[in-house]
């Protein structure tokens, strides 16, 4: 059905293009002087149909499921939901019944509801096609009536295109608002169940405790401090390993390497940045963590199976090219005159780098490191696979710790009920993550920009 709707609106708009263009050309052939080229008359018809019809169709597809679900749920017999703790489970059961997946023997009212849902789906699909058809026909007539010698079709087309482009650039803003709004909305619901002070200052994180929605979260179970501490430990490990390696390789590439080595080495380093993080996660659990454990055992140091060192170390590998390319850019951006001046005074290359270039490049490097920190905090797959699940108040990198992102994913994996504090806690964590990384990013970009202005 969706395909039919799109085919319909595409053919209608193409038809509008041809009809209007031909009408405009016919006017010209009759000796009238057109303001715009025939093509623009055609394009005007095309856009006049395409834009509203596509918007309507997409909105319809996005909203129809929600409407159908509400209609189905509201038409359930009275009392059917009364003894159900969770209407969302009922809804998902009806949905799977409607798709023909029957488990066991469902109650008759559920089967009825599933049938009604299917009816509503079919009706909605037909209604959508009908609406698209009617809309296209009306707009085709409207645009056809506007074809006239004096009609400024090009200006009209350009206005529509400009409007479209402005809308496109607004999407980025809308997405940001969507993120902030959805996170804040769900977090507020969370903080109605768990006080904000408990969340921020509690030292115990045991979110799995409230299983059913009617249970109230045990006091102190949603204290975010140990989770934050875990994130800090892993981030610290990652940064402590990646910054020296990244900086050193940037210095070597920038100052000592000949052009051929640089041409080979830089893309290989970039490869490390292009590897998906799920691959790093697998590498951490398959190779790095067992190796660390074996070394620990050989030295007599107890190392947890999912030690923070494994997750942080592998994350460091991922961050090396990031830091190295930022540092490389920062070193290259130092004006040539500084470098030449140092060399002319007789400084060796290493003295030039360490005493002249490096201090001058510090703001850019710091900006890059800050961005790396924000990536390390927000990095998900490596820690989900290689870090622990249990929040502990510890600073020991050999121990197993958990992070904000790990908790978000484990709380939301599988079926989610939007009325339990367990699910909503993930959104509160997400909000904190968003605020912290946003703050770091803005700071980093500001430092980088400020530094650039000094020399340009």
């Amino acid at each position: 059905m969706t395909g039919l709707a799109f085919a319909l609106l595409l053919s209608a708009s193409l038809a509008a293009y041809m009809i209007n263009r031909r009408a405009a050309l016919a006017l010209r052939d009759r000796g009238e002087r057109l303001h715009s080229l025939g093509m623009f008359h055609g394009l005007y018809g095309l856009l006049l149909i395409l834009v509203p019809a596509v918007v309507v169709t997409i909105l319809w597809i996005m909203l129809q499921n929600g409407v159908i679900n509400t209609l189905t749920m509201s038409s359930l017999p009275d009392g059917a939901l009364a003894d159900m703790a969770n209407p969302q489970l009922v809804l998902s059961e009806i949905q799977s019944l409607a798709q023909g997946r029957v488990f066991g023997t469902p109650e008759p009212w559920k089967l009825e509801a599933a049938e009604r849902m299917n009816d509503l789906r079919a009706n909605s699909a037909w209604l959508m096609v009908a609406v698209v058809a009617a809309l296209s026909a009306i707009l085709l007539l409207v645009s056809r009536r506007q074809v006239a010698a004096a009609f400024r079709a090009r200006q009209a087309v350009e206005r529509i295109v400009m409007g479209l482009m402005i809308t496109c650039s607004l999407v980025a803003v809308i997405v940001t608002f969507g993120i902030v709004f959805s996170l804040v909305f769900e977090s507020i619901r969370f903080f109605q169940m768990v006080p904000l002070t408990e969340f921020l200052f509690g030292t115990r994180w045991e979110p799995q405790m409230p299983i059913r929605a009617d249970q109230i979260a045990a006091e102190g179970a949603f204290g975010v401090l140990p989770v934050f501490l875990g994130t800090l430990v892993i981030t610290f490990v990652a940064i402590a390993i990646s910054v020296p390696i990244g900086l050193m390789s940037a210095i070597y590439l920038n100052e000592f390497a000949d052009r051929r080595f640089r041409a080979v080495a830089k893309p290989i380093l970039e490869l490390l940045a292009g590897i998906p993080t799920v691959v790093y996660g697998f590498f951490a659990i398959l190779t790095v963590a067992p190796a660390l454990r074996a070394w620990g055992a050989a030295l007599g140091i107890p190392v947890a199976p999912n030690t923070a060192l494994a997750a942080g170390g592998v994350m460091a590998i991922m961050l090396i090219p990031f830091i190295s390319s930022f540092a490389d850019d920062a070193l290259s951006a130092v004006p040539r005159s500084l470098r030449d001046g140092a060399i002319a005074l007789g400084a060796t290359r290493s003295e030039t780098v360490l005493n002249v270039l490096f201090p001058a490049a510090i703001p850019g490097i710091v900006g890059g490191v800050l961005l790396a920190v924000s990536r390390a905090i927000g990095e998900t797959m490596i820690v989900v696979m290689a870090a622990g699940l249990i929040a502990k108040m510890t600073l020991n990198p050999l121990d197993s710790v958990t992070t904000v992102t790990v908790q978000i994913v484990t709380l939301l994996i599988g079926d989610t009920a939007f009325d339990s504090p367990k699910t909503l806690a993930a959104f509160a964590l997400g909000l904190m993550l968003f605020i912290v990384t946003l703050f770091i990013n803005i700071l980093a970009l500001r430092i980088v920009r400020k530094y650039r202005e000094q020399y340009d």
Partner: protein
Amino acid sequence: MTDLPNQRSKPAPTWSSDEFKGRLARRHRKEAGLKFLGLAAIMLAFLMLGILLWTLISGGAQAFRQTHVTLDVPVSAEMVDAADPAGGNYRGVIAEAMQATFPEAPQERMRALSGIVSNAAQFVLRDRIVEDPSLIGQTIQIRVPVSDVYDQLKKGNVDELSDESTRRLSDADIAAFRQLEAEGRITLPFNWALFTQADSRFPELAGLKGAIIGSAYALLVCFLISFPLGIGAAIYLEEFAPKTRFSDIIEVNINNLAAVPSVVFGLLGLAVFLNWFGMQRSAPFVGGLVLALMTLPTIIIATRAALKAVPPSIREAALGVGASKQQVVFGHVLPLAMPGILTGTIIGLAQALGETAPLLLIGMNAFVTSAPSTPFDASTALPTQIFIWADSPERGFVARTSAAILVLLGFLVLMNALAIYLRSKFERRW
């Protein structure tokens, strides 16, 4: 000032003095030290990359081949009714075939011997018979996968010398398998099932078809949404937007959006697309939507850079012959910037292909045993399939995870190679 020879009153330390030489040597040592440290850092990074790739290749290579056993299967009419071939007792047929293969084996060993053949054998046989019911009553030869433990045995991952109680296969099991090998029934062909089958609970049957198609749908949706939106936004911001507070806000916004952690986009998708709009869980369409929002900033930034690289003389020339501003952009600047835009888009899509966390949150880690036929069916994607398999305890899934990663990396290399080709082929330096 030029001719003043031998006018020094006291001998200054010259470059040849011991003190001077010592200092110079120290400085040179420091230089060499820094150089060595830099090279060591780079080599360390290379070493890590090497270990990573080596782990994946050595672990994943095995999964590209799959041990098969060839069986003579007597399809008797008692077991399979010619009127209803799909409803036959194929498990029994396979058991009979094993009995025929090991005629001297005692009855109580038969259960263990049937375990050599994968659980899929009965379905392979069923499909064969349903396709051609005239085979009922005959003895036919089929080649089916062996189950995972025997696959591991064939690939040399079972230590036969270890204590019998510590391994899953008894000595008798291994002897039976060796007998089949001696009879030439065991083969190790290329594992096409990895690409033609969807996920399964049994490692010897699990394939990537569902994940590849799911990823393809998600990327298609991602491209269809983010490409036009990104280009539209970039053109407006680069060519038309007046320098106002409003356009400044949009710019800052896009830069920040590019650095938002991917898991946050997953939260957005879960709250907005699944919870508020009631869209289908685990659907590649929703995955594509979320990925599109993530890719959008990348495409906008790449497009703006490509537009900026077109020299102003092109614009001025077009304006000079009377084109409107939009005609200049769409008729001249955009086509010239297209190679750069496409390169940026492909790189953005390659990033989206490897993205896992947001897909996990919208449920694309579901266990689905059939490939999706539309973008609205439940499905996995390549990275989430890797995540699922990495979590599975069976030995066979370890190799399969590496193989899946190699497939994913293969796609990434292809996309990046395409981007590099486009750049080198069409890029113009002005």
